[in-house]
């Protein structure tokens, strides 16, 4: 049972990470900086609970704001470059963040032990949950509360004008400009929201793993972050959730017996998905089909009701 609870926790945190990339990807920007924002959120939140003695709720809120602010600041220069150059720029940022934490040593003596981030050794003793007697189930519910909140917020945004505008920018920047959209502002806003969500995910991640170190926030995590929404499709936030469940639940855990060969499969799967479902598992056509099905079932005099007469 604990295995499944643990898995559900991972799925929750990775969904937040995937959704942060989803926001940015909607505007057509491929960002490999999400793992960097995730790392910033993790370290900030952990330092606040461990060193400053904060409760976890304000700590992850503060972590989100810090990550969001940094994303906003990064957004202006980074989004001036496009396409592959943006991938390189954001990758460089992610690595810079990782290397910062690799060198970041800020330990404080508490009695006989020293606590706090210790450079390459990482940041241990993030014990908010055990210290406050939270069970695994409590932690799980705490994580999914935030996942649900973020998904609901993004789902709402998707259906509002803001969602349509983000997608319009992603489709064609020139046309968007000519339709009166401030493309730079939209892209930076998406980056900021993405950073905020990644920071939130990172803050939670730090507390349930209890130990964070630079190596966890490398290129692999950045690739996962962007792979989820690509795999799941950009038509709905649920695509990202399904992709995370598929990757974490099936590929990573389900195929554990394959050992490190799994990673090869992961790459092959992305290639396959891009060829078979270029717009993701759940694309606009899927949603339109579901809608049509619902409408058909509602209409009086359709095949099913006629059959029942």
């Amino acid at each position, binding site marked *: 049972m604990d295995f499944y609870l643990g898995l559900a926790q991972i799925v929750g945190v990775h969904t937040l990470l995937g959704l942060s990339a989803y926001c940015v990807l909607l505007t057509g920007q491929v960002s490999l900086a999400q793992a960097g924002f995730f790392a910033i959120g993790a370290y900030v939140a952990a330092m606040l609970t461990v060193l400053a003695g904060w409760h976890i709720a304000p700590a992850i809120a503060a972590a989100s704001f810090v990550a969001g602010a940094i994303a906003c600041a990064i957004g202006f220069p980074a989004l001036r470059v496009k396409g592959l150059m943006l991938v390189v720029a954001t990758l460089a940022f992610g690595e810079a963040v990782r290397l910062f934490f690799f060198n970041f040593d800020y330990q404080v003596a508490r009695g006989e032990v020293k606590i706090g981030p210790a450079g390459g050794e990482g940041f241990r003793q993030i014990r908010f949950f055990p210290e406050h007697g939270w069970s695994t189930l409590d932690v799980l519910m705490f994580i999914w509360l935030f996942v649900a909140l973020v998904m609901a917020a993004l789902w709402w945004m998707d259906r509002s004008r803001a969602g*349509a505008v983000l997608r319009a920018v992603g489709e064609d920047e020139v046309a968007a400009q000519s*339709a009166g959209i401030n493309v730079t502002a939209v892209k930076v806003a998406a980056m900021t929201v993405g950073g905020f969500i990644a920071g939130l995910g990172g803050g939670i991640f730090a507390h349930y793993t209890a130990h964070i170190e630079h190596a966890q926030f490398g290129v692999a995590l950045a690739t996962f972050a962007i792979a989820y929404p690509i795999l799941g499709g950009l038509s709905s936030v649920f695509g990202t959730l399904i992709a995370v469940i598929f990757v974490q639940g099936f590929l990573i855990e389900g195929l554990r017996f394959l050992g490190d060969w799994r990673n090869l499969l992961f790459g092959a799967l992305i290639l396959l998905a891009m060829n078979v479902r270029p*717009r993701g598992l759940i694309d606009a056509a899927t949603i339109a089909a579901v809608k049509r099905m619902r409408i058909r079932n509602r209409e009086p005099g359709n095949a099913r009701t006629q059959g029942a007469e």
Partner: protein
Amino acid sequence: MLELKGLSKHFGGVRAVDGLDLNVPQGEVFGLIGPNGSGKSTVVNLVCGLFPVTAGLVLLRNEDITELASHMRVVRGVTRTFQNIRLFGQLSVWQNLWVAQNAIEHRSEGFLRRWLGGPGRARAEIDRILEFSDLSGKRDELAGNLAFGEQRRLELARAIVARPALLLLDEPAAGMNAEEIDQLDARIRKLKQDGLTVLLIEHHMELVMAVTDRIAVLNFGQKIAEGTPDEVQTNRLVQEAYLGVAEAA
């Protein structure tokens, strides 16, 4: 309405537009014609701010907008269509208009309401324009799935939903059949009636001659003639530009 003063755009050594003076009066349909590569589309791109000018001024209602960002020109009332259609293909027909409407319609609303609110008030206006564009039956289709003629109509709809004062049409009849061109003709006349100023770039001469009040002719980035359709049609320079210079026998 629109005034261009000494407008130039050079791409490297190519003088796409070279010292162009143009005055498009309020409420007129103004034609801009010329052979391929004469700089017509570049003029549109400069007026809507897609790239910076090399020299010269763009004045809108006597206000200098030469340095203004593209999206801010839309707010001032300049919208356009594209020669090669540029819709938001993965958005529905209705969303394509909703996005563009943002520029002007709801500035008075609060930030949250404007960005995170539902369709609400926008709906009536958009429905009206869908009807005008003969797209009412297609409102929930993805724009990318529309037929060619419908996409052209949607582009025009997207340009007018932001309530422009000056509409730039870059070859709106390209690829259309005769019936569709007639409908376009009627729509342009209707827009003129509603008080819009239109700058029309078009190769389809029948349409240009029928619908415009004045025409300017470009060749190699320079204006070689300007006048009423009749004057332009009989202008020797224009005939030469289009048909080539008659060899002296």
